[in-house]
Structures are given as structure tokens and as C-alpha cells.
């Protein structure tokens, strides 16, 4: 079963969702910032929003075709949908929620299927509780079970884990991966978290302002972001405009000066000529911090700077360093402690040449 969809929908002045997508069985991550049109795409596929133009085929079933006037109603599409906030029916037990889509089956058969899927999502013990009396993670697992028990030909997931904390999230991702292996259906998973793209996705599609700007495996798409939009999305916290000042063909590198600063970085060589402008992206986690000048390192980029801020974001310490340009650096709490880092300190930043990625600033369309 493969999903083949083209959707064109005007969402506002100057903003049109215009996407063509083929999703084979397996998990396809739809990745993009909020407001990029990901959710609208899911709603169009489910039949909850009507596209202006387009065509939607799952396997050999045509569910929508603007030209032929085909528009199969939501309830006849057999498309599972998992909402961001679970959307469990609050007046029903989890058992009745999960059995809701099986109303055409006999009571025995229905109970048997509910019991089986509850087992695989580890919620058998709490089936008789209403949604308000279970945890957020349990609610979302029940919502997954409710959608999958009807054996849909396609599963749509709209940021289903975004409201949950990291530990619960990764356990549900394991559940979802298992569910995916057991079923040969396409699953479209909307997210704005690059962690989820890496851990879940077999295919990643990046959407920006209503268009597909990149597609491929998660690593292809996220590790070598070729546009700055993507660099931001993919967790490249540092994106600098820069000018090429020297090409070192033999070393395979080039020297770039960050726009408006004297700071220079050595980056991998590409085709840009001396004097050309370019854009450099560096992950905050790829930058090392030292409190004295490092010696005997292979890293070519050692920058002197001043720490202006350190703050905790969950388990990560985020440091801001002024080194000509403003760098965001991620550290562990123990790293911050062992270096006695505090705002105002002089520090050295160490960046490997190959941690600097050259990105284009104009989106390309594939």
C-alpha cells in the first residue's frame, strides 16, 4: 500500500499549500516549523479539509480527485488519525474509546480486538478508566491503539508526542516502531522535532511555507542541510552569513569571515569563489569550550570569546559566547561545573572544520 498525494490549497494571502508526496509503507516524517502547512496536509489527506486542487490515492483506491469530482467522505476513507491532544472521548472508558471504530463488529470480536491491541500498547490494566484518570502518555497510547485497531490503510499522526516528556516519548516511539513493523501501511508523522525525525523516520520530507523543500532519509536531509531554513529546523543553532576570503584547494578547505565581524572560520571547500557570500551552519553540540587556550589540537578553528550567559534547558546547558559573532553552545551540567563557567568569563571555542556546514540561503524545490 502506497500513498500518492498532490494537494493544492490556498491558506491565506500569499500562502498556498502546494505539495506532491509519495509515501511507501513505513514511517515518513513530515518535518517543518509550525505554520508551514504540515497539519493542513494531514487534514486534506484525512478528508477533514477540502483541497482546492489535487488527487489522493492509497493503494488502488482514489479518495480524492478534484478533476473527476471524487471526494470520499472522512468516515469512508479508512484513514487513521492521531491528534496532538489524543482527542479521546472524555465520556467513555479507554475500552469504549478503542472499540469505537469497531462498531460494525459483534461484541465478542470487538472485545477480543480491543484486548489484543491494549496488550501491545501496555494499557490492559487501565482499560476501564476514563481518559481523565490516566496519564498523558497512556492517553496517547490509547489514541494510537484506537486508530490502529480499525486496521486503517494509512495512519496520520499530528505531533502526537509533542506534549509529553522525553522518557515517555521515547517509550511510545518504541511502541510505534513495533506497530509499524507489524503493519505494511504508510504512516505520515508530523513533527517539528528533529530528534523524532532521527529516531522514527525511514523517510523524511521537509515542508516550509507550504512547499516540500527537501526529502530523503533523515540523515540525508538533516545532516547536510543545504538551506538555512532547514539548518534552523534541523537543530543547527548557529547560522552565520559569511564571505569567502581564501580558498585552500590542496587542504580541501576555505577560510570564511563571518559577516560584520573579524571572526574567521575554516570550513570545507566548495565551489564558492573568493569574495562570494555564503552561509555557515554549526550545531551547538558540535562546539567545544575551554577555559584556557587549547594546544596540540587538530581542530583548525579556535576562537577567543567571552561567555555572556549560561542557562539550563532541560538536561542541556545552553551557553552564549561572544566571539566576534554570537555562538550558541550546548554543554552538559557537569561540563559547566568542571570548568567553573560563569557569565563574564573568557573562554575558547573549538570548532572542527567539518562541523561547519555550508548552506544555501535560497530554498530549492525538488
Amino acid at each position, binding site marked *: 500500500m502506497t500513498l500518492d498525494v498532490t494537494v493544492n490549497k490556498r491558506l491565506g494571502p500569499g500562502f498556498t499549500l502546494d505539495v506532491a508526496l509519495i509515501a511507501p509503507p513505513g514511517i515518513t516524517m513530515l518535518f517543518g516549523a509550525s505554520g508551514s502547512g504540515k497539519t493542513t496536509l494531514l487534514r486534506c489527506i484525512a478528508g477533514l479539509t477540502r483541497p482546492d486542487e489535487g488527487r489522493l490515492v492509497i493503494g488502488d483506491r482514489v479518495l480524492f480527485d478534484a478533476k473527476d469530482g471524487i471526494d470520499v467522505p472522512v468516515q469512508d476513507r479508512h484513514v487513521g*488519525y492521531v491528534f496532538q491532544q489524543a482527542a*479521546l472521548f472524555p465520556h467513555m472508558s479507554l475500552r469504549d474509546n478503542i472499540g*469505537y471504530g469497531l462498531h460494525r463488529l459483534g461484541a465478542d470480536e470487538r472485545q477480543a480486538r480491543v484486548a489484543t491491541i491494549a496488550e501491545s500498547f501496555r494499557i490492559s490494566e487501565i482499560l476501564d478508566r476514563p481518559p481523565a484518570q490516566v496519564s498523558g502518555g497512556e*492517553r496517547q497510547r490509547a489514541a494510537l491503539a484506537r486508530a490502529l485497531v480499525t486496521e486503517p490503510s494509512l495512519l496520520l499522526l499530528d505531533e502526537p508526542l509533542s506534549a509529553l516528556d522525553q522518557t515517555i516519548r521515547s517509550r511510545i516511539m518504541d511502541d510505534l516502531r513495533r506497530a509499524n513493523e507489524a503493519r505494511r501501511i504508510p504512516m505520515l508523522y508530523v513533527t517539528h522535532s528533529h530528534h523524532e525525525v532521527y529516531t522514527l523516520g525511514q523517510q523524511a520530507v521537509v515542508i516550509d511555507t507550504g512547499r516540500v523543500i527537501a526529502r530523503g532519509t533523515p540523515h540525508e536531509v538533516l545532516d547536510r542541510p543545504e538551506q538555512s531554513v532547514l539548518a534552523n529546523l534541523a537543530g543547527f543553532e548557529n547560522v552565520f552569513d559569511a564571505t569567502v576570503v581564501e580558498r585552500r584547494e590542496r587542504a580541501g578547505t576555505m577560510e570564511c569571515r563571518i559577516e560584520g565581524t573579524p571572526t574567521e572560520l575554516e570550513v570545507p571547500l566548495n565551489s564558492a569563489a573568493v569574495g562570494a557570500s555564503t552561509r555557515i551552519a554549526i550545531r551547538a553540540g558540535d562546539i567545544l569550550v575551554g577555559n584556557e587556550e587549547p594546544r596540540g589540537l587538530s581542530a583548525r578553528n579556535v576562537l577567543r570569546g567571552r561567555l555572556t550567559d549560561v542557562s539550563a534547558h532541560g538536561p542541556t546547558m545552553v551557553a552564549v559566547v561572544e566571539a566576534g559573532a554570537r555562538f550558541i553552545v550546548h554543554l552538559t551540567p557537569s561540563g559547566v561545573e568542571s570548568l567553573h563557567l560563569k557569565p563574564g568569563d573568557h573562554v575558547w571555542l573549538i570548532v572542527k572544520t567539518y562541523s561547519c556546514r555550508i548552506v544555501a540561503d535560497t530554498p530549492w524545490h525538488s
Partner: protein
Amino acid sequence: MDWQAIWLTARLASLVSVILLVISLPLAHWLTFSRRRWTFLIESLVSLPLVLPPTVLGFYLLMAMGSRSPLGRWWMEWTGHPLAFTFEGLVVASVLYSLPFAVQPIATAFALVDPSLREASATLGASGLRTFARVTLPLSIEGVIAGLVLSFAHTVGEFGIVLMVGGNLPGITRTVSISIYDRVQALEYQQANQTALVLLAFALLVLTAVYGLRRRPWAAAPIA
């Protein structure tokens, strides 16, 4: 005590509430979820009795029920007696007069149901009717009960429209409020007071029951 008037009023109000429930559920559903642009016209029409003096509405209804109007003639041919100054005429008038009191709370309750619940129901293969019966209606039950109680109480308390359309026929159109007015006109304050007290006690009882039994909203706790 005018037991005849009390019994008549109870019958009238019960019948009107049931008819209003049957009309208001689909009407409120349509008003809440229809994407048509002219729903506001129907909305203002339904809400008209809220602002119109009962005598104005009563006057037009009386005209409509008269033997010179198509409605009056059709009723006459069908049943053999006129609609005005009958119990049936009173029911028709009361249904129209209390319509907004039933439709508005129900429509508000429908609108408060999280749209993603109805969408989830549809993606699980439920027809529009099943989504209504299993999701929208159970989650709006408080609004529906409020609509029922309000239309019942409003019918019990109406005066002007009854007088215009029904007149004051004992056992046919003389409701409690007419009866009280009648006694006061006859300077029978003692009897007026007795009937009035029954009405007061009834109103208090209904409201206490409604507010006392009112359940907490269904809203699930936000995802932790």
C-alpha cells in the same frame, strides 16, 4: 387553589418542552455546524421572541390562526375546528415563543464540544448521525437539560401570548398565570396568593434541582 389551571399548565409545558426538544436538536446542530453564510438569518428569526413583546407575537399568531389565513383554513379543514382559542393553538404559540430558550443553550453546548472529538469520530468510520448520538449529544447533555428546563419554565410563566392566542377558557386555555390574573381582577387575593405560591415553590424547586444536580464539565485534564 385552581387545580384545573395547574394541571392544564403542566400538560402544556410538558408537551411544549418535548416538541421543542425534537425541533431544537436538529435546528441547533444545523445552526452550529452549517457552513452556509445565511445561518445568521435563521438565527435572528429563532431569537425574535427574545426581544418581541409577547402581545406582538400573539397578535400575528392570532391573525395566522384565523379562518382568513391559509394556516387557519388548513387547520379548520383538517380538524374541523379553529386553531385560535384552543389548547392546540396554545401549544403552537408556546413552541414558537419558547424556541430560543431551547435552541440557544443547546447550540452553545454543541459549539463547546471540542471539534477534534467529532473529527476523531469521523476518522473512525462513524456517520454523521453516529457522531451526533455518541459524541456531540452526550457531551452536550447539560445544555440539552438546560434547554428543556428553560423551555418548560418559560412556558409555565408566559402570559401575554396565552391571553392573545388562547383567551381565558377554563380547562382549555386558562393557564396558571391567567388564573392568577383573573383572581386578582376579581379581588380574590386569597386564591391568587395560593396559586402564586404553588408557582413560586415550583420555580424554586426546578432551579434548585438543575443547579444542584449539574455535573462538572466533561473536560479531560490537560495532558500532563
